[in-house]
């Protein structure tokens, strides 16, 4: 009996490094951030000043709004493209399907700084396409500015699409050919099959993918940093400049914005869970 107890203590001791890392670099910093967000600028006085500042400042509200709009827009667009593209992919032979998914997997690793750079040399001020189009005389790109909202959307969609395809593609495997046959035997058209069977089956996967993409772009920092620097007002860029820039550090304000960003992401996950429950109630 005594020996077993001693062994248990040794085993528990082996867990210590893990616990230390989790406390030191995961839980600790999170708690510190939340706590710090409830201090005034001097870091001594306990106050909710920071949150009041954010919600009274047009500048910071705009940052939040811009981030939300870009994330929603890019997530919706990418999900729509992915739903259509993944369906088209399923129409090819297994070998080609695997190839296409390989391309999606490959390009999903092309993100952050290298991706932004790539778009800059293609579509930036002196980009290849920009110069080419201006020479051909097309005014299509005359109003296009990569270092703006449209540019950000374009790049965000680029890194969201491969991910969305890889997430949605598997759920098409769940739609059986026999279901289509049964539906048409019972007199259903292709449209009614998709309306009543196909889309409801895909819906949980679509909603789940949407909230992952949304969270993904809310937290995106590297891509935006490389593309627009501090020229565009985004939540993640503002947080970075408040806690780690060379000028005007405001760690308390940065913490409060960090808490808001984290809350948005938890909100997205919560929404995801609620939607799943609602949609799948029939199966529960």
């Amino acid at each position, binding site marked *: 009996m005594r020996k077993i107890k001693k*062994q248990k203590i040794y*085993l528990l001791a*082996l867990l210590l490094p893990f616990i230390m890392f989790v406390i030191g670099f995961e839980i600790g910093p*999170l708690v510190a951030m939340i706590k710090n967000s409830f201090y005034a600028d001097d870091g001594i006085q306990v106050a909710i000043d920071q949150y009041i500042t954010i919600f009274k400042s047009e500048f910071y509200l705009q940052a939040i709004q811009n981030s939300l709009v870009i994330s929603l827009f890019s997530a919706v667009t990418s999900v729509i493209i992915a739903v259509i*593209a993944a369906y088209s992919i399923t129409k090819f032979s297994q070998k080609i399907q695997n190839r296409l998914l390989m391309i999606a*997997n490959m*390009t999903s690793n092309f993100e952050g700084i290298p991706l932004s750079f790539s778009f800059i*040399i293609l579509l930036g001020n002196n980009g290849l396409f920009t110069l080419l189009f201006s020479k051909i005389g097309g005014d299509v790109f005359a109003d296009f500015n990569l270092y703006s909202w449209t540019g950000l959307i374009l790049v965000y969609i680029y890194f969201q699409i491969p991910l969305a395809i890889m997430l949605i593609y598997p759920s098409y495997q769940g739609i059986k050919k026999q279901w289509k046959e049964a539906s048409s035997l019972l007199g259903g058209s292709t449209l009614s099959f998709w309306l009543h069977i196909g889309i409801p089956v895909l819906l949980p996967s679509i909603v789940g993918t949407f909230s992952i993409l949304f969270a993904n772009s809310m937290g995106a920092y590297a891509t935006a940093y490389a593309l627009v620097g501090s020229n565009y007002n985004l939540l993640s860029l503002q947080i970075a400049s408040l806690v780690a820039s060379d000028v005007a550090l405001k760690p308390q304000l940065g913490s409060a914005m960090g808490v808001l960003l984290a809350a948005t992401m938890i909100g997205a996950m919560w929404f995801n869970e609620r939607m799943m429950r609602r949609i799948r109630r029939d199966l529960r």
Partner: protein
Amino acid sequence: MKSSLTFHKVIVGLLVMYLLIPLVGTFLFSIAGKWDHTILPESYTMDWYIELFQDERFYDAFRRTLFLIVMSVGLSVVIMLPTIFIITVYFSKWEGLLQAAAMLPYGIPPIVGAVGLIKVYSDGPIQIAGTPWILIGAYFITILPFMYQGIRSSLRTINAVQLVDAAELLGATKFQSFRTVVFPNIISGILVSTLLSVALLFSEFAFANLLVGGRFETIQIYLADKLNSSGHLTSAIVITYYSMILLLTGIVLKLTFRNEKNPVGSNKKRILSFFKKKYCNKNTAIEGEK
């Protein structure tokens, strides 16, 4: 029916073009001599690569990134293997807690994580903000979800609990049963999540820039710094860097294919399957039947 296949071909064709043009463009730019008003470069040259491979800064940045990766992935393997093994086999009631702690980082973007890390380590007893050591800690947490999933599912596939029971029944000590029975059987499973983690950390920029920045120039920081200088040279860096990532993910795909006979193994997909399992068991049941 035929016209609808054409439609799918057009869709997939457009998609592949959209996905590949930036890559191909960057590649061509990196080997282009003169290229400004034509569709394809007017002349080709390897000068940019030669210049890159003579740049000491590039090698230094590469070495620093390697150092960070080896340290944090190494630490993660050494710490997570026994932790997950012990909890699965001997303290299974804490499994939920371990899972929560291991999956939490997936929901926290680096930008949020960095705020707290800077706060904790810029004053107080341990002042490591601005040094590579804080990055090693942050990276340990970043790769936690992937290492956890990899190790946990490997242990589950080999029925580790029963194996250890059997080994102990035959007189092996706890350490012996781990080292000679469990460990050799899960190495390949761990290899996949290790390589995934390496690829992930290779492309990590947010933590590196916010926590340490130019004081410890990693490959990503070097790249960001070069963004505004010669485009051709930067393309050469991007292509070199991306080839390494491709090589890593290529090996991962090969290994996953060999292990699971499933050609599209992706770290992100694995994570989603976790969420799906958590949020709607019924759904995965439908998807699971093949």
